[in-house]
């Protein structure tokens, strides 16, 4: 029996192996073309925003990306003119105008805007945020236009530091435990470019926030604000020097955190991340993480593979002094797992080597850049493969050759055969390939339900050659678990794949008619005690419910109703018969004149009412009857009244 115990699991392995070449292709690319396009989209949307802060950072982002910022002048002037008394609007609006190099006049709003900015600095004890906005706006305008003495303003900020430059106290309303105070200070430092010896300690304090710093657990900034990280990066870059104790490893760690945050959707966050990454990549190339990209992750046998060294933004690093060294090559899943590494030739950021003398498969490459630790990349070597000598057999025993064999040409003919439940269906085939395939399956597809059943084929000694496989399926053993007693026509096929194949092999073998016994009834119970229905324990159909229709009433013999009808008619006849005897006559009925008319009319009305009742009984609806009865009843009443009045008058006369 072939190892067919868990076909779905094997199928998953097979699919994973087939897609390995796609997985290995997903190597590091830090700032891809798609990222640039997305950031352009964020900048474009920000420029159309009504938020001054969003417009400001959208302008900076668009400018950094080389986008079009021609619309900023109009929109920023519009924002300031609409709300010249709002400090944030004016400050960010001024900043946007400065970024876009707009030479426009604010007109009547300029005076009020300047007044707003001056009031933003405020008196002693004013909001630190207002001070920051005013200072940034003043710097954006060239300095000294709002604040009479920028140096004084900076000193005002610097009063929060001690003489040696370390943070002495935080601005009002800020918690010492929060990083916000540090962030605000850093942002001003980055903007004012103050150079003093005291800045060192402040920056060192900021550097303590970096992962990798002494005493840090390395996870400090996993969820940090992009602005803070950007301020850190800018401050580190602007003040970088021998006196700053920020190691390249810390800078690299900061860059990696920024890369995780590049998915932000806000213009401010996007600009900060982009600017920080650009700063780190340009001013600290050694600190920026280099990405070794395997440009050709999948190659043919003996082909050339290429390694590219890219910077943090995904571009090539030009002018590198050192090369890339292929330190070690390990063949995964092969007996001789160590391969002599070829020498990488090239310069700058691109290096090539020919992968000769190695079989197909997956190789782990250990690459070293300069003196750094080796990084691992995976290279897949593939070759073409084909199937040969396919035979399908139906036999009474497990031995493949005991029964009837069907030759399957590689192209053209198909097998048409049948098998019973007690028989064995087998297939043998040879794979012509440079490597033994890791996955080979014998697939049954039910043509009625399209359900697929996979059986793993294993290496066979029937035929010579390492690539010979055989799969034997015992229909009796698999009738319940795999086939579910579903008799019918099944399509047979072979599916063979390996990571070393350039494409998976699938060979249609033809149709096979399988006959199974019927499915035995399930007799085991679901529960020991019934939860709700008796079927919980019986698991058998409940007795069929036969609807009990109401039995029709017993009808008497038709003669009996007829007899009683006759008797009633006899009584009625007797009634009319005896009427003249008791003196009934029509002498009182008027014979002429209006009295005759009214009396006849009254009788007609009575007959019509009776007829209406009969119609109601036979077919009319109740409401219809009432609608007709109302005018008829009124008419009858009036006519009867006239008839009786006439009768009374006649009696008196």
């Amino acid at each position, binding site marked *: 029996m072939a190892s067919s115990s868990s076909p779905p699991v094997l199928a998953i392995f097979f699919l994973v192996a087939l897609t390995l070449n796609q997985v290995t292709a997903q190597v590091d690319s830090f700032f891809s073309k798609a990222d640039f396009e997305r950031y352009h989209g964020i900048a474009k949307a920000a420029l159309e925003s009504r938020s001054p802060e969003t417009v400001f950072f959208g302008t900076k982002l668009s400018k950094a990306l080389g986008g079009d910022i021609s619309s900023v002048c109009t929109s920023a002037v519009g924002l300031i003119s609409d709300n010249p008394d709002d400090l944030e609007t004016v400050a960010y609006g001024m900043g946007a105008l400065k970024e876009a190099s707009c030479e426009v006049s604010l007109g009547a709003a300029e005076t009020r805007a300047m007044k707003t900015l001056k009031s933003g600095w405020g008196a002693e004890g004013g909001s630190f945020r207002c001070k920051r906005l005013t200072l940034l706006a003043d710097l954006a305008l060239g300095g000294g236009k709002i604040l009479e003495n920028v140096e004084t303003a900076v000193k005002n900020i610097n009063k929060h530091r001690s003489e040696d430059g370390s943070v002495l106290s935080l601005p009002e309303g800020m918690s010492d435990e929060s990083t916000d105070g540090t962030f605000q200070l850093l942002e001003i430092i980055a903007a004012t470019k103050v150079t003093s010896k005291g800045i060192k300690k402040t920056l060192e304090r900021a550097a303590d926030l970096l992962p990798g710093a002494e005493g840090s657990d390395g996870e400090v900034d996993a969820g940090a604000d992009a602005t803070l990280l950007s301020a850190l990066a800018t401050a580190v870059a602007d003040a970088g020097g021998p006196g700053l104790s920020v190691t390249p490893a810390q800078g690299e760690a900061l860059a990696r955190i920024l890369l995780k945050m590049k998915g932000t959707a806000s213009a401010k966050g996007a600009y900060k991340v982009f600017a920080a990454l650009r700063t780190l990549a340009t001013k600290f190339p050694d600190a920026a993480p280099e990405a070794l990209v395997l440009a050709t992750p999948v190659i043919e046998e003996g082909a050339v593979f290429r390694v590219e060294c890219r910077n943090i933004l995904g571009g090539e690093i030009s002018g590198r002094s050192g090369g890339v060294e292929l330190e070690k090559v390990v063949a995964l899943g092969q007996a001789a797992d160590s391969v002599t590494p070829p020498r990488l030739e090239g310069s700058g950021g691109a290096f090539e080597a020919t992968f000769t003398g190695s079989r197909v498969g997956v190789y782990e490459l250990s690459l070293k850049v300069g003196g750094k630790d080796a990084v691992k990349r995976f290279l897949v070597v593939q070759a073409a493969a084909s199937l040969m000598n396919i035979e399908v057999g139906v036999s009474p025993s497990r031995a493949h050759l005991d029964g009837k064999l069907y030759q399957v040409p590689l192209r053209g003919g198909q097998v048409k055969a049948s098998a019973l439940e007690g028989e064995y269906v087998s297939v043998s085939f040879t794979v012509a390939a440079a490597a033994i395939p890791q996955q080979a399956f014998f697939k049954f597809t039910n043509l009625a339900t399209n359900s697929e059943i996979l059986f793993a084929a294993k290496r066979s000694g029937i035929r010579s050659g390492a690539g010979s496989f055989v799969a034997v399926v015992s229909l009796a053993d698999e009738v319940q678990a795999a086939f579910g007693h579903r008799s019918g026509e099944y399509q047979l096929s072979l599916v063979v794949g390996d990571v070393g194949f350039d494409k998976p092999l699938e060979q249609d073998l033809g149709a096979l008619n399988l006959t199974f016994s019927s499915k035995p009834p399930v007799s085991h119970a679901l529960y020991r005690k019934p939860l709700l229905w008796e079927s919980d324990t019986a698991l058998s159909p409940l007795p069929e419910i036969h609807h009990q229709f109401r039995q029709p009433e017993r009808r008497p013999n038709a003669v009996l109703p007829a007899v009683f009808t006759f008797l009633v008619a006899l009584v009625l006849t007797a009634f009319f018969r005896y*009427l003249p005897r*008791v003196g*009934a006559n029509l002498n009182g009925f008027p014979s002429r004149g209006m009295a005759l008319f009214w009396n006849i009319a009254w009788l007609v009305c009575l007959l019509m*009412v009776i007829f209406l009742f009969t119609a109601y009984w036979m077919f009319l609806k109740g409401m219809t009857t009432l609608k007709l009865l109302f005018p008829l009843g009124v008419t009858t009443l009036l006519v009867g009244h006239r008839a009786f009045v006439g009768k009374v008058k006649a009696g008196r006369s």
Partner: protein
Amino acid sequence: MTPAASALDIRGVGKSLLAEYRKAANTQTKIVDLFLAFIVATGVLQFLYCALVGTFPFNSFLSGFFSCVGMFALTVSLRLQLSSEKNVEKAFGEYTFCCLLLFFVVFNFIG
């Protein structure tokens, strides 16, 4: 008193009663009484049918039987008004109206 003599007495009382009735009752009263007799006979026949043959359809039986009962009551009421020598036409008009109302109910229930 022998049974034969008793029967003769009863017959004599009946004849005397009938003669007195014919003599005293006017034509209108006689007609009403004849109609009452017809109503009673019809009601008895329906009851006999129900007792001997069956009640199906029961609602029709009830309609017919109570129609007889209702008509009997209305007719007796008419007879009383005729006997009191009030306005005969008015009494007959009311009787007609009530009969129509009764018929409407009966037709509604007859099924």
